[in-house]
């Protein structure tokens, strides 16, 4: 059990983490989500007693880390997979960590097997790929067979098979009753791996709830309504009528309307009553990714802008048309509006100086350019699109002789 109370960290006048309180419980995978620079790694370092909080405290099993008896056997952590001396062989790297914690050397060979690095154990880690480095870091976290595990971005640089392996490893560790705390900036990954979510932005808590609740609270659907392009006044007319009937209407970039708060048949009736023809009336499900983006959009520190390419482009030949901008690029993001909450919002999206929506480049792109493309898989009763049907199944063909076989070992053994 990890417990943070009023955790605050300031570096000079920059506040990295502010008044963060949460609990990470045993027996579940807790996802720790936030955009880059939101304070995830700082929080992890404070949990491990590496950074001293400016205010508040964080304890593991009731003790601050630096007072925790036999800490390395209780807590294992992967903070930064690149934090190894490149000139040292993988096995030696683990061996010195093991000796530091009083762990016998044979355990080193065990964890090397668990992460599938036994064949490169005596090679210098300088030549390792990002994925191999992550495996080495995970091996280091597993060394002490700890009850509490922290992983900072464990799937970075892993191939799909590696991602699946990490996902299953986290779940099996949690199933053994351990506390597993995994940070990520990928909502889609966490939706598959985690049981519980802690979302932060700009160092502040945005949400602390189970994935199930998160889905229920945030995956509310919306209807996309399109009126004839040829008659823009119809669009205004319909928007007014829908708003009057209690719907929440947002215009989309391509001229369609995003409507929440009204069921589809009602929208159709209203359109009929107001004499507006419809070209499209389609149900849509906001993905978890989208809900997460919406939640954190005010809290993103590093935001891309349109590449102006000033001075780099050839002058256009006379008469040529400048290329049309790709819809969704460099323009304000269009996320599904927050679903109506009977008991108030489960989280408060930060407002104020940071509240202006910017231009997250990739996220809404899937929706905007072609609204028709997504209709089939997005029936309202279907699960959110972030979740493929069978996340927990082992890979279809696990029988490749050497490395893959060893990778699936932990699941087989349990």
């Amino acid at each position, binding site marked *: 059990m990890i417990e943070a109370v009023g955790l605050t960290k300031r570096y000079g006048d920059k506040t990295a983490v502010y008044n963060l309180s949460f609990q990470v419980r045993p027996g579940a995978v807790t996802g720790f989500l936030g955009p880059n620079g939101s304070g995830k790694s700082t929080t992890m370092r404070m949990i491990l007693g590496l950074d001293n909080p400016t205010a508040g405290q964080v304890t593991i099993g009731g003790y601050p880390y630096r007072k925790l008896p036999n800490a390395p056997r209780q807590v294992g952590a992967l903070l930064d997979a690149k934090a190894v001396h490149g000139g040292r062989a993988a096995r030696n790297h683990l061996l*010195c960590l093991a000796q*530091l914690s009083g762990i016998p050397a044979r355990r080193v060979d065990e964890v090397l097997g668990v992460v599938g690095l036994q064949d490169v154990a005596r090679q210098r880690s300088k030549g390792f790929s990002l994925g191999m480095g992550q495996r080495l870091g995970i091996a280091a976290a597993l060394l002490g067979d700890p009850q509490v595990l922290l992983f900072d971005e464990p799937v970075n640089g892993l191939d799909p098979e590696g991602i699946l392996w990490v996902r299953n490893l986290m779940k099996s560790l949690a199933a053994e009753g351990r506390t597993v705390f995994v940070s990520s900036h990928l909502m889609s990954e966490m939706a598959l791996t985690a049981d519980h979510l802690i979302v932060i932005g700009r160092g502040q808590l945005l949400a602390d709830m189970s994935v199930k609740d998160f889905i229920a609270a945030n995956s509310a659907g919306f209807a996309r309504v399109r009126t004839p392009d040829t008659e823009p006044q119809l669009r205004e007319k319909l928007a007014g009528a829908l708003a009057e009937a209690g719907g929440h209407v947002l215009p989309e970039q391509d001229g369609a309307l995003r409507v929440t708060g009204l069921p589809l048949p009602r929208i159709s009736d209203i359109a009929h009553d107001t004499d507006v023809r419809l070209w499209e009336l389609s149900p849509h499900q906001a993905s978890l990714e989208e809900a997460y983006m919406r939640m954190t959009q005010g809290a993103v520190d590093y935001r891309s802008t349109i590449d102006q390419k000033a001075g780099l482009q050839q002058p256009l030949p006379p008469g040529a048309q400048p290329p049309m901008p790709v819809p969704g690029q460099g323009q304000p993001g269009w996320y599904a509006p927050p679903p109506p909450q009977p008991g108030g919002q489960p989280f408060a999206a930060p407002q104020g100086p940071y509240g202006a929506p910017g231009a997250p480049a990739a996220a809404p792109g899937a929706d905007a350019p072609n609204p028709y493309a997504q209709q089939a898989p997005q029936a309202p009763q279907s699960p959110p699109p972030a979740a493929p049907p069978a996340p927990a199944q082992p890979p279809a063909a696990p029988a490749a002789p050497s490395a893959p076989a060893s990778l699936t070992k932990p699941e087989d053994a349990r």
Partner: protein
Amino acid sequence: MAATQVIRSEWTKIRSVASTVWTLSLAVVVTIALGMLISGLSANEFDNMSERDRLSFDPTFISFAGMSLGQLAMIVFGVLVVSNEYSTGMIRSSLAAVPQRGTFLFSKIAVATGLALVVGLATSFVAFFLGQAMLGEHRAALGDPGVLRAVIGGGLYMTLIAVFSMGVAAMLRSPMLSLGILMPFFFLISNILGNVSATEKLGRYLPDQAGSKIMQVVAPVGDDTPYGPWGGLGIMALWVLAALAGGYATLRKRDA
């Protein structure tokens, strides 16, 4: 307990990187080879020397002439042992495993110091014997008064230089910054301060100037240094203690 665990681990760390072997063997080879070269040259020059120079001719000290360069490799060794932890980020894993930062730092330094002492003493003895062989008829014997003290002192001097570097590296954390300050300081600045008459009185209290007094058997004519060989080494040891205290304070207080 924690200290023995850290010592075992640090021994694994220190022997599993190539830089240890490179820096230490460079220190050995440079110290011995340069000492032999200068000893041989001095033996040839002896007949042309002034009376004054002959009186203060110190065959033991001459055979240690290579240390002025060899100590630079010792500095690199000391700096890398500590700052490798920071430059690789390994320090976080290490401190997560050993939250008692003092235990961690001093066990680490103890292991590196032990290794530096063994290498330093071996270098000192070999440099002495080979240097004396080059000096021919002007040589000193190990049994002569003060010589054994000087030879052992040479090993201690090299060790203390390495430990001083470890302390500085623990304070500064960055290998480039530590080397960028220590190398020119010991190679140039300290020598300049010690040889310019205006700063001479101050310069002789610098760690290397004071510490190298232990390797002198015959004092130069007109020497008015206010401390003896062991006093000089003591002054150097105080510098080392100050550097270690600074390194410990830094590690304790700052975020890893």
